[in-house]
């Protein structure tokens, strides 16, 4: 029986010839992309390999010939730039719109005034030089006139994961992180959404890369993103979707 099973599964795997997709994914989309990849693998039998880094790093890697088939950015600027430079086939499409939250663990009656709680020594945010959630946080602070007042308390994480870590370990008392990071993990009373009118929407773009050897599978994956269960999954993970 066991022998039969092994032989038949061998035959099956030869028959379907599973192919591999290499996908570069921005750090903030890590959890969600793993779930999407898992269900894609289950439904199609093709393997998906995810590589996580900051969007700036992936950008430089793709410029220098990194073997990715698809690139999920944390913004639309970097994917668009790659397209302008001729590395992309097709258009940039927005797969998710990220939301910024202010997270202050163990604070009761949290609101935007809590930013000025004298107990706060450090507030972590992503580096605004290159990280989209950092750019959004700075925009919010400038727009509300709070940047100068809080400047000396701000510490920068290299990317949004490190920014989360600083607050998680209590090195920073509070932090500006992505909703996708805290949703389902952190108690809802410990964070507040930053009003979306106070920063440019963090639209996140995905592109198919020209160097791929497997255009069909790439298209299959990109179309898969538009299927209802996946859209629901992305929404549940702390993002909004641009309505067409």
């Amino acid at each position, binding site marked *: 029986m066991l022998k039969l099973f092994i032989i038949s599964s061998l035959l099956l795997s030869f028959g379907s010839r599973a192919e591999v997709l290499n996908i570069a994914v921005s750090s903030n989309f890590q959890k969600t992309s793993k779930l999407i990849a898992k269900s894609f693998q289950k439904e199609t039998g093709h393997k998906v390999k995810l590589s996580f880094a900051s969007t*700036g*790093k992936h950008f430089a890697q793709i410029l220098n010939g990194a073997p990715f088939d698809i690139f999920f950015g944390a913004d639309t600027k970097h994917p668009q730039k790659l397209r302008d430079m001729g590395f992309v086939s097709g258009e940039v499409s927005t797969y998710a719109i990220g939301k910024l939250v202010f997270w202050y663990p163990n604070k009761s009656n949290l609101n935007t005034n809590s930013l000025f709680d004298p107990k706060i020594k*450090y507030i972590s945010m992503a*580096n605004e*030089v290159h990280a989209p959630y950092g750019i959004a946080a700075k925009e919010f602070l400038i727009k509300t006139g709070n940047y100068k007042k809080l400047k000396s308390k701000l510490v920068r994480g290299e990317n949004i994961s490190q920014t989360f870590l*600083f607050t998680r370990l*209590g*090195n*920073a008392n509070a932090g500006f992180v992505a909703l996708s990071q805290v949703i389902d993990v952190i108690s809802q009373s410990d964070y507040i959404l930053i009003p979306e009118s106070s920063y440019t929407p963090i639209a996140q773009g995905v592109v198919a890369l020209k160097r791929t050897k497997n255009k069909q599978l790439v298209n299959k994956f990109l179309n898969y993103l538009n299927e209802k269960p996946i859209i629901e999954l992305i929404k549940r993970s702390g993002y909004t979707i641009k309505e067409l």
Partner: protein
Amino acid sequence: MDWESIFLTLKLATMSTLILLIICIPVGYWLATIRSPLKPFVSAVFALPLVLPPTVLGFYLLMAFGSNGPIGKLTSFLDIEGFAFSFKGLVLGSIIYSFPFVLGPIQNSFESVSDKYSEVAMSLGAPLKDTLFKVSIPLAKPGIIAGAVLGFAHTIGEFGVVLMIGGNIPGKTKVLSVSIYDHVEALEYSKAHSLSAGLLIFSFVILIFIYGLGNKWRIGK
């Protein structure tokens, strides 16, 4: 040019190296002279920063500095500034990170001189203090210099630990390597290039100095 980062990096390397010398000369001498079954264990602990990725070191430091970590609890109990995101935190991180680089050459040179000369000095009636300061340490000087230079250079090149515990604050924790990294991430490749080239030349000169020192010592012997 990022003069602020360059100045901060030099300050960090100088302070760390001085403290490392104060620690590593006695520790190196001790390790060179003891005959204990515990010696391999102690040596292994001291060599750990050599093999651990800087991110591991940085992560554990960050945990230790955090509100539930032992150091974080101590600083909040004493009501003093915490170690994360501060210059003193970087100094502590650098001391741990560069420790084996300073200890190694110092211990080696003590090992090669301590037996013969210090025994002679002691048998001629020299007290331990004189044996140490007039015989052993002067003879180990090339190793001490090499350790200092290596520790200094290694701290200049430190990146992973600083990135984890520093928080990228200009003038406080934003050292040279972090500036370079930021320029690369912001696609400012020409700025990254000029800083990187400077660091490359600096490191090369330091290594030439160390190898030259080794040569001179061997010829002098």
